[in-house]
């Protein structure tokens, strides 16, 4: 479904990605783990068209994403819940969700249906529908960011650090929701600091270090890999 080939990305003179190749198949949950600065978020930003690669390619169902502007990528069925949530703080929860469905603005019925679905998935959001997103707690903002990303009906959902800064019980909830979303047929690419949880929910995983893929395997194998356990699971 998604093939990343030998991606090189620079921020000015600084190299962020040094030839990353990753594949995501339809229906999978794939996770990228790695330390700060390994290039996980840069990969996500490149996938969504916020950053242009210097070389390499990103193919989504045969289309070259790295040549498309960000809004067309969303229209193709890829949406992202970015790191740090990035909800529109001065808009209501409802308006945030509406903006999530921006590309489907003509399909009023679909937007209403999707909004109901988001509220079923995250009942807390329903309670706070009219509240400004900036006044939500961190966990609620995360739910909003994920709910908002689902509003465009993505076939590939990019989740960047969905558990960052959340209370432990909420982390469990978020990962359960990721599983649920995946079961509805949405393919997921997940970036996580919480490698343990990420590998438990994912089918396959990639380990990134300083802009390169150093390990690629099934999630189960990575979980039992000694190097991974030492470096990322703190054992």
């Amino acid at each position, binding site marked *: 479904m998604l093939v990343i080939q030998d991606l090189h990305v620079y921020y000015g003179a600084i190299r962020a990605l040094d030839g990353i190749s990753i594949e995501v198949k339809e229906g999978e949950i794939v996770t990228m783990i790695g330390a700060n600065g390994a290039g996980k978020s840069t990969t996500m930003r490149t996938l969504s068209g916020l950053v242009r690669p210097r070389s390499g390619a990103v193919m989504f169902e045969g289309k070259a994403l790295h040549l498309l502007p960000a809004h067309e990528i969303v229209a193709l069925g890829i949406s992202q819940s970015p790191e740090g949530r990035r*909800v529109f*703080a001065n808009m209501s929860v409802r308006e945030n969700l509406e903006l999530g469905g921006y590309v489907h603005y003509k399909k009023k019925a679909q937007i209403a249906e999707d909004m109901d679905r988001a509220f079923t998935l995250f009942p807390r959001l329903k309670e706070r529908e009219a509240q400004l997103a900036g006044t939500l707690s961190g966990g609620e903002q995360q739910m909003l960011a994920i709910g908002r990303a689902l509003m465009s009906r993505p076939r590939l959902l990019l989740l960047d650090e969905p558990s960052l800064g959340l209370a432990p019980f909420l982390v469990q909830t978020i990962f359960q929701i990721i599983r649920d979303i995946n079961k509805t047929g949405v393919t997921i690419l997940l970036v996580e600091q919480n490698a343990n949880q990420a590998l438990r929910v994912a089918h396959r995983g990639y380990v990134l270090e300083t802009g390169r893929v150093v390990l690629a395997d099934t999630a189960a194998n990575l979980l039992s890999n000694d190097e991974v356990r030492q470096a990322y699971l703190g054992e």
Partner: protein
Amino acid sequence: MQALVQTLIYGVETGAIYALIALGYTMVYGVLRLINFAHGDVYMIGAFVGFFACTQWLPFKDLSQHPEAAMLNVVLALVTLLLSMLICALLGITIERFAYRPLRNGFRNADAHFWGFVIALPVTAFAGAMTTTKRQGVFLFAGVVIGFIMRPVMAYLAKRIKPSGSRLNALITAIGVSLMLENGGINIFGADPKFIPDILPKRQFNLFGLVFDSSGLIILAIAAILMALLRYIVLYTRPGKAMRAISHDIDAAKLMGINTDRVISFTFALGASLAGAAGFMVAAFTNIKVVPLFGLQPGLKAFVAAVLGGAGNIPGATLGGLIMGVVESLVASKFPQWRDAVAFILLIVILLVRPAGLLGKNTAEKV
């Protein structure tokens, strides 16, 4: 006391004009974090469109000769208002497309074309003006040809211009566009002052011992309608919501599938049309001379008004504009020589005391 209230009323009328211009500054600042210094010159173009519409393009009647044509003139004045807004909107879109967008996204072929012509045409027009009048067509033709030839040159230069997020580049470009419009205006329209004749019947109303001028009331009413419309667009329509999203976080807006370039274009069109309306109204209803530097002072003052209210904050721009008008009119009534200085004193004070502006917030983000 009466004199004071009268001064206040006059201040609110001036303030409404500042507010209309300031809205354009603040909206563009909101989406691009750019101070569009060419905005005051868009206001000038609005005044010129008004001038040409009132004196040449549209069949306005001289009311001193045909007093019965008042209704016709009212309708034509409305048409002129819309025409000023439309032409300024197109100008705003053009400025954004060819001056600011290449700085964000890189220099494309279309940009090379445009700038090739922009450079070639005035040069040949100038050469044409230097010779006998009969040959001007030849020079115009030469301009078009050179414009085409310029394209590969521009494209070559363009390869050396890398898009950068540098705000300074954008700011300098804005000043450049402003100079281009002002001097282009002098070249095309001439530097001699022009006046829009009285196109509407003038009346004065006496209420509670106060004098209300019909032209002032018209300015206030139209400004109020336009601001209400703007408020509706920004709060409740799709492009308005997209504008607010971009203004809060442009990358997040892109992730929603918002075509940010298009919405930025729309923002320029909105702001420029308000400035165009203001330019026409001032030129038509206050008997101020229309010159190519018409927008310089009001532009700067409206910029101060936008900062005063909080750059990027739409209600703030309205408030800032009104405060600016009232303060200026109060000061001018006692110390006329300080009239133009007061704006900049206000700017210094606000930057010292509350740099985010009256309604602006220093937002902290949750991590």
